[in-house]
Each structure stands twice: as structure tokens, then as C-alpha cells.
């Protein structure tokens, strides 16, 4: 299952995109309480948003973004347009999801 969930509400020529990404966003400062060892940093760095294959935004995130990042943006588009969101983490993992408005 994709880590990305989105809800798109068309309003005129603007799409209101609400996205929720399932990701721990580990800062690298936290310790595992049972072993006392540091949990390595693992957070999303780049989050791209495309409408009909054309990039409209690049989000640069850091460890200071909350766990399971929520992003709400407004992009140009109309009902039926396809919104694609993709992310890449500092560990090199990535995911992508598309949804029609």
C-alpha cells in the first residue's frame, strides 16, 4: 500500500490538495529506550508535486517536520486533472502516488 494518501477538492481553476504521508520522520536525536542506542535519522527530504506530469512544487523537508507529514497546498488545475506526489528520504527510499481530481 502506498504511503501517500491525498484528498483533492477542485474549486474553480484551483485544486486544494491535502496529502498525508506515512513516515516516521526520525530526527536522529531520539534514543531507543530498551537499548540506549540512537535511532538513526530517517526523514523525507524532497517532496515533489506534479499536475498532469508537470511539476508545480518542490517541498524540501527536514527532521523538524512532524511524524507522518501532512501537507496542504493549492495548485492550478481543474476536475479530472491528475495530481502526482512523490517523496525521497535521506536514506534513499522513495514512493509515489497519483490521483485524479
Amino acid at each position: 500500500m502506498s504511503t501517500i494518501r491525498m484528498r483533492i477538492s477542485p474549486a474553480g481553476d484551483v485544486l486544494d490538495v491535502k496529502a498525508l504521508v506515512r513516515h516516521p520522520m526520525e530526527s536522529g536525536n531520539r534514543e531507543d529506550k530498551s537499548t540506549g542506542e540512537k535511532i538513526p535519522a530517517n526523514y523525507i527530504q524532497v517532496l515533489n508535486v506534479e499536475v498532469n506530469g508537470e511539476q508545480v512544487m518542490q517541498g524540501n523537508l527536514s527532521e523538524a517536520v512532524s511524524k507522518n507529514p501532512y501537507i496542504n497546498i493549492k495548485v492550478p488545475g481543474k476536475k479530472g486533472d491528475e495530481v502526482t506526489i512523490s517523496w525521497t528520504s535521506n536514506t534513499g527510499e522513495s514512493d509515489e502516488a497519483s490521483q485524479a481530481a
Partner: protein
Amino acid sequence: MQTKRRVFLKGSLAASAAGLAVGAGLLSPRTVLAADWPQSAFDTEGMDNAMDELFGSHDVADSGDISVKAPDIAENGAVVPVTIESSIAGTNKIAIMVASNPTPLVASFDLMGANPFVSTRIRMGSTDNVTGVVQAGGKLYKAGKEVKVTIGGCGG
């Protein structure tokens, strides 16, 4: 003559080694993508320094045309909802910063057609201003909102 030949051979060997590394996928496109992420701006301490790294300047003016929405009191610093909206024409970049966090830059958004509006949830270590920095027409503008944090959200 002999030494020059040595040097030439060494040089060509090094060049072919680099070529092999690319061919073997050691330098994958993913490394190139990660280079898009402004590492130095995120690693820098101090608001002015982080702005220098991200925008190339910290010459920033207060603006009433930026709205920063955040709660007055955040019980849990690990999840602070923040919304930043700019009505400045030509806004092409929005950054969220918290001066007292270990590194002030929280996130930055490059707009390539998207509206100058972004809403997300951030971590705050202690009570401080959430600052929205906006780049428009090559100039920088900012606005802030104080959030009282009851329990910090950086450690745990």
C-alpha cells in the same frame, strides 16, 4: 619524456575508473536528486546564516502581506500546525523557520506554478516565533507568530 608518459598513463587510468563507477551505477541518479535538497541551509545554525544559505541573503523586510497561522499555545511541540500564505506578487519560495530549534530551517517550498499557500505540521523545541520567509521578485519578506510550547518536540 619517460616521466611524462607515466603521468599520462596515470591520468587516463583515473579517468576510466570514474567512467566505470558511473557505468556500474555507483553514482546513481538518486544521488543527483538528493543534491537538489539544500543540505547546507538545513544544517546551518542561526536564522541569518540559514537564510544566507537558502536564499543567498538575509536582507529581509517585515511584511503585512504574509499570513502565518499557528496556535497560540501548542501542548505538544512535536505537532504544531502552521499555515503560511503570501499575497505578494511573484512569490516563488516559502520557507518555514523556528529560530530556537537546533537548526532553524524547518522546510522550504519552491513554487513552480503552485499558489503561495502551504500548510503543514512541524516540530518545535520550545516557545518561540514561527517565521515565514517569502521570496518574491528576488527580495525577501517575513512575518512571524509566537507559539507557546508546553512540551518540546525535539528529543524524546
